[in-house]
C-alpha cells in the first residue's frame, strides 16, 4: 500500500527542511532504513532512512525545495506490510529485563540480580501492571479551588476590605452609611457586625402600604442577590421556604431578632390597649390626592403618612410616649424619630424617619417612600436603622384587626394601624351610617407609661385623624 513520507524534524528547534538530493529515482526499490534522500536544515545535513521497504512511487518535493516539518515529500509503495501487532501482554520494565536477559546469552559477569545481595528494607520495584507507570501513587494535581466569593457586582467605596464587603452584603448594609471605628474612620468588619444588630422590628413585621394586595405582591418579589440574605439552596429548609420536618438553620438576622424579642419582653412589662377610629374622611382625602401625588413625586401615597402625622403630633403632647426607661431615670427624647416596621421575606427591619415631627404629611410620605425603596434594594445604612424613639407598625396591611406588638429597642411603646373595615355605626344623632373604621393598638412599657397616659395618647391620635378633611394641606 502507498505510504506517504513526510519531512522529519531534524533538531529540536527546526521548523522546515530542504530536499538537498534524492538518493533514489522513481521506480527504484528501497529497503527499510536505507537512506533515500538527503535533507538539509539550518542545524544539520542528514541522510534520511526509509521507514518502509518498497518501491518509490513519487517524489512530491523537488530537489532544492524547502517545505515545513511534517509536509509530505514522497510516496513509497510498501511491499508486504510488515505489521506489528501490539503485544498481547505489555511486559513491565522488570519483566522485560528478565525476558531479554534470558533470551540473549552472554558471557558477561556472573548473571545475577541484586536481590540476592540486598538485606534489609527493599526498595519498591516497578512492575505489575501493563502500560501503567510504576511506583507509588499520588493524587491528581490540585489546582487549589478558589475560595468562594458571591460574585454579584456592587459599587464599593474605596478603602473597603473584602471582609467588610462580604459582611455588608450578608447583612444588607450600605457601607457608606456606617460610622467607622478603624484608623482614619475606616469601617471595620466589627463595625458592620455591630450595625447589623441595630433595629430589627419587635412586632410581626408586615408591609407598609394600605393598598394591601399590591404591596404584599411587591414584597414577595425576589430580592436582588446582592441585597437579600443568601437564599437557601433548593431542597433545604429556609425561613422563606420552610419544609415540613426540616430544621431551618438560623441566619444571623434571625438570631438577632430572636435575641431582641426575648430581651424586650423580659425587660419591659408589656401592657396593651386599643381604640377604634373613624378614618372615613382621611380615606377620602387620601383618595383625592393620591393620583396627583404619585404623578408629581413618584411615590405612592398611602394612609400611613397621615397616621404618622397624627402620631407625631400626639407624641408632642404626650412626651412620655417618646421616652425610654433607664436606671438613672426616664429619658425623654428631644427628637422624634419614628421607626416604620417593614417585613422582608426573611427578615424584619425598622428604618427610621428622623425628626418626623418636623415633616408634613407629604414629607413623611416621601421619607417613608425613600426608606421603603432602600429597604427593597438592600441599601439601608446604619443611620437609617438607628436612633428610633417610637415605632409604628402597619399590621392592618395583612388584614389584622388587632395586634399585640412587642416593643422595639427599649422604647416606651409601639403602635399599630390595623385593617380598615367598612362597618355600620351609630352616629352622634342616633342614626346608622357606613363608616371606614380602623383599630389602633398600643403596647406600652408599664414602667414608663400608665393607662392614663396611654389612653390619653390614643384618644389624641383618634381626634386628630377624625378631624382630617379633604382640602387640608399635605
Amino acid at each position, binding site marked *: 500500500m502507498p505510504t506517504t513520507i513526510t519531512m522529519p524534524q531534524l533538531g529540536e528547534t527546526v521548523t522546515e527542511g530542504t530536499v538537498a538530493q534524492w538518493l533514489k529515482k522513481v521506480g527504484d526499490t528501497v529497503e527499510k532504513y536505507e537512506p533515500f534522500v538527503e535533507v538539509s536544515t539550518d542545524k544539520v545535513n542528514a541522510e534520511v532512512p526509509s521507514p518502509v521497504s518498497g518501491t518509490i512511487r513519487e517524489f512530491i518535493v523537488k530537489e532544492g525545495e524547502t517545505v515545513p516539518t511534517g509536509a509530505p515529500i514522497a510516496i513509497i509503495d510498501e511491499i508486504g506490510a510488515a505489521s506489528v501487532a501490539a503485544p498481547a501482554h505489555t511486559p513491565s520494565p522488570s519483566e522485560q529485563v528478565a525476558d531479554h536477559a534470558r533470551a540473549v546469552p552472554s558471557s558477561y559477569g556472573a548473571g545475577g540480580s541484586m536481590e540476592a545481595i540486598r538485606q534489609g528494607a527493599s526498595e519498591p520495584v516497578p512492575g505489575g501492571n501493563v502500560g501503567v507507570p510504576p*511506583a507509588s501513587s499520588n493524587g491528581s494535581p490540585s489546582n487549589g479551588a478558589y*475560595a468562594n466569593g458571591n460574585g454579584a457586582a456592587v459599587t464599593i467605596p474605596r478603602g473597603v*476590605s473584602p471582609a467588610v464587603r462580604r459582611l455588608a452584603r450578608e447583612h444588607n448594609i450600605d457601607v457608606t452609611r456606617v460610622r467607622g471605628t478603624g484608623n482614619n474612620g475606616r469601617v471595620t468588619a466589627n463595625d458592620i457586625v455591630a450595625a447589623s444588630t441595630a433595629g430589627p422590628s419587635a412586632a410581626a413585621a408586615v408591609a407598609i402600604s394600605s393598598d394591601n394586595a399590591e404591596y404584599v405582591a411587591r414584597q414577595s418579589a425576589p430580592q436582588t442577590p446582592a441585597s437579600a440574605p443568601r437564599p437557601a439552596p433548593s431542597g433545604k429548609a429556609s425561613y422563606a421556604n420552610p419544609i415540613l420536618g426540616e430544621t431551618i438553620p438560623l441566619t444571623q438576622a434571625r438570631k438577632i431578632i430572636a435575641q431582641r424579642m426575648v430581651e424586650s419582653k423580659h425587660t419591659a412589662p408589656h401592657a396593651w390597649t386599643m381604640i377604634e377610629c373613624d378614618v372615613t374622611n382621611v380615606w377620602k382625602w387620601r383618595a383625592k390626592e393620591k393620583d396627583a401625588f404619585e404623578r408629581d413625586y413618584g411615590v405612592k401615597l398611602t394612609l400611613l403618612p397621615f397616621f404618622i402625622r397624627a402620631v407625631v403630633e400626639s407624641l408632642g403632647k404626650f412626651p412620655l410616649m417618646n421616652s425610654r426607661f433607664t436606671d438613672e431615670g426616664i429619658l425623654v427624647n428631644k427628637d422624634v424619630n419614628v421607626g416604620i416596621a417593614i417585613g422582608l421575606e426573611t427578615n424584619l427591619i425598622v428604618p427610621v424617619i428622623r425628626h418626623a415631627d418636623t415633616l408634613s404629611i407629604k414629607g413623611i410620605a416621601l421619607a417613608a417612600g425613600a426608606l421603603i425603596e432602600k429597604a427593597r434594594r438592600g441599601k439601608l445604612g446604619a443611620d437609617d436603622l438607628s436612633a428610633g424613639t417610637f415605632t409604628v407598625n402597619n399590621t392592618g396591611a395583612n388584614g389584622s384587626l388587632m395586634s399585640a406588638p412587642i416593643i422595639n429597642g427599649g422604647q416606651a411603646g409601639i403602635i399599630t394601624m390595623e385593617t380598615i373595615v367598612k362597618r355600620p355605626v351609630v352616629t352622634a344623632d342616633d342614626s346608622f351610617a357606613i363608616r371606614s373604621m380602623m383599630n389602633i393598638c398600643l403596647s406600652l412599657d408599664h414602667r414608663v407609661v400608665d393607662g392614663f397616659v396611654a389612653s390619653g395618647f390614643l384618644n389624641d391620635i383618634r381626634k386628630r385623624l377624625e378631624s382630617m378633611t379633604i382640602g387640608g394641606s399635605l
Partner: protein
Amino acid sequence: MAVMNNVDAVRETLHDALVNDDRTLIMGEDVGARGNVFLITKGFLEEFGPERIIDTPLAEASIVGVAIGMAMEGLRPIAEIQFADFIYPAFNQIVGEAAKTRYRSNGDYTCPLVIRTPYGGGVRGALSHSVSIEALFYHVPGLKILAPSTPADIKGLLTAAIEDPDPVLFLEHKKTYRSVKGEVPEGHYTIPIGKADIKKPGTHATVVSYGYNVHQALDAAQRLEKDGYSIEVIDLRSIRPMDKTTILASVGKTRKLLIIHEDNKFGGVGAEISAMVAEEAFFDLDAPIRRLCGPDVPAMGYALPLEEEFMISTDRMMRAMRELAEF
C-alpha cells in the same frame, strides 16, 4: 519530661537515631574529633567510631553528593553543612540531584537524606555566618524544608526527617541553640512534617513566623496582652510542605495577617504565604497582608548597628502587631 536547650535536643535526637538504626551515620566537617563546632556531636566519635561519624574533607558538594550515593544505596546518612552560608557549593547536588532522584528514576531510586545546617543571625556572625537560606530551597519540588525552634519540636521533627524517605533540609537557628529551653518528652516520637503549631492563641490578628523570630513574636504578643491586644502566634515549623489549614483557620478568625521572617523580604517565604492567603481567604481579610522581614541587602554586617538594623527587634514586632490590630 526533661528540660533542655535546642543544642541538646539535636544531640539527643541524633544519638537516638544512631543507636536505633545501624544504617544511620553522620558526615560533615569537624563532626568527629571536634564534636561539631557547637558541640552537638560531642562524644559521638568515641561512641560510634569513625565509619559512622565521618570527618569529611572541606568540600560541601561532595559532603552532600556522597551522602546522596549512600542514601541511594540504602544507608540513612545525615549530612551536616557547618554553616548555612557554606551550602552554596552543594546547591547542585541538593537541587539538581537529591531533589530529583526519585522523580527522574520514577521511583526506582530514592534519596532518604537529611542535611542539617545552622542558619540565621544575631550572634555577631557578620556576612558569612548569618544568612537565611530557606527561600533558595523551599521553591524546589522534591525537597522538604524544616525550621523548628523549640527543643520539643526539634526532637519530633528531626526524628521525622531522619525517618522520612525523601531528602530533608533541616534548618537550626543558631541564636536559639542555647537561648531557648523547653520540656522534651522522653522516648521516641515524631511530629508530622507539614504541620504548623499555634504557640499562642488570639483574636485580633494572626502572626505567622518561624525560627528565632517566633520567640520574639511571643514576647511581643505577651506584652501587648496588657494593652488589651490578643495576638495569635503561629510557628510554621515546616516550610515545605507548609500548613495551609492552620493559617487559613486563623486568618478566618482574626481577619488580619502579619508574617515575620528574618530572611530578606523580596521572594521570601512570606511572599508565598501572602499569595496563598490572598487567593484562598480574600473575603476573610479586613486588612492588607503585612510582611515584616529582613531588608533586601546581601547580609548583616559585623558592626553592631549593621546587625541590629538587619535583625527585626521585638519592639518593631510589637509596633507592627499593634498597628495591624488597630487597622
